């Protein structure tokens, strides 16, 4: 039985903001299915009472004083922007 369908792959691609062609969606379906099937070997392990590890070191929230510091110069920030106008980054229309 396959773990993931081409429809699901298209939905995930939408969530990931990736345009995919039919051909890519079909290829990804097969490849992801294989990887997910492999990953399901983790189900051999009973992890009922195991705490998840998100981070290996005992570091909790790291706080600092909330003090104002100078920001980056506008021209530096815009230097790498694909499009800008009047000191602002410009993007295509957000709403139709």
């Amino acid at each position: 039985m396959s773990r993931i369908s081409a429809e699901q792959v298209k939905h995930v691609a939408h969530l990931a903001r990736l345009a995919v062609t039919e051909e890519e969606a079909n290829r990804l379906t097969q490849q992801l299915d294989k990887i997910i099937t492999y990953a399901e070997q983790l189900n051999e392990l009973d992890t009922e009472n195991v705490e998840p590890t998100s981070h290996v070191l005992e570091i909790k929230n790291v706080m600092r004083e909330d003090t104002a510091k100078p920001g980056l110069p506008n021209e530096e920030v815009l230097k790498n922007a694909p499009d800008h106008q009047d000191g602002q980054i410009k993007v295509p229309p957000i709403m139709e």
Partner: protein
Amino acid sequence: MSLFDHKVSDLHELLHKKEITVSDLVDTSFNRIDEVDGKVQAFLTLNEEQARAKAKILDEKIGQANLESLLFGMPIGIKDNIVTKNLRTTCASKILENFDPIYDATVMGKLHQADTVTIGKLNMDEFAMGSSTENSGFKDTRNPWNLDTVPGGSSGGSAASVAAGEVLFSLGSDTGGSIRQPASFCGVVGMKPTYGLVSRFGLVAFASSLDQIGPVTRTVEDNAYLLKAIAGHDEMDSTSANVTVPDYVSALTGDIKGMRIAVPKEYIGEGVDEAVKQSVFDSLKVLEKLGATWEEVSLPHSKYALATYYLLSSSEASANLSRFDGVRYGYRASDAQNLLDMYKKTRAEGFGEEVKRRIMLGTFALSSGYYDAYYKKAQKVRTLIKKDFEDIFENYDVIIGPTTPTPAFKIGENLADPMTMYVNDILTIPVNLAGVPGISVPCGFTNGLPLGLQIIGKHFDESSVYKVAHAFEQATDFHKQKPQL
């Protein structure tokens, strides 16, 4: 003989006595790059004009100051996922092809303080995702020992450039083996430090809970010097550990009498090449002669590390790489109708195949209805893998095994099936999941290709790892052999 056949400490002495200049060292780099980089293809961007200018400035200082920094004037190569102010940083991705960083990574600031000279930026698998550097969006780097084979990855350029004598040393990054595996394939020394020892500020994030920057060098001593220079707490990285950085070089005594070595049976079992196994057993004999003892142990959850790693690293990557959206920097698709369309086209055109595959896997594993079954499950198994290491380190000083199951493979050989490529990292991945330090040192050859010995230590015990690695290196001469280019 090249100047780069000397250790850092010897070159420092030569500079001090004015027998050589920084310009000589920088010339050595660029001459060698001219000579061999057409074949090796380790570099994506050269920093020639600035490097030569800096060499001149440093040369004027030689007479004045007494060169406090041991790394003064040493030519270094930088993996292209470490941001360098005003020096193009691409992560070997089309999406960042023209990215010109406006700040330096913390490690770059530390290197500037130490007065090293940046020679250029090194090729890698796109966004550090891969084990052969074949996923670079720009070029294939070759293994200097055999140009038909891969240098390993993702820090392929970092390892190949050092092996080819193009730089004295380099920085790489390691998320699942990306320093140690190419170091092994190219016959050089590569260290993945304890998670949190080296600041990740300015390292373009792949998997934030696993990524570490580390040094690639020709000798263990040079490696210890370079790590000392880049390690330390950084308030710009909230996952940076507030620990004192020891003087690693003082641990390089050659005395490993009584040290206890654990050899996991899972690291010398099925799927590991016979020549690789033999090199590990030969290496253990060397260490025994030096007075260490070894026993076979078990890391019982090793076989689950690969699946755990791909779920966790891809999930973290899917979040981290969401910043590449064509808005503030990088590539933007040109014919988009609206913002959503622009995001989708930009990312589809800008990212390579492997990066997209991992973003997809990660997005799936984090998506509603699958989060508990995949992502959370993998986090729980990570706890078990970490515990395996803690149990062993109660009774042993270091863990030793091969760095990789095989020597370097042919270019193109593992591209068809993502899973066969992933298996390459099966012996290095558990180290990242546990967050402990691991090094690869040259330990033999098979069919003219280098093999690497992996030495793994306790959290923040890089000193013991270096001590054993150095004693082994001094008792063997694998590190003295050079590829013929």
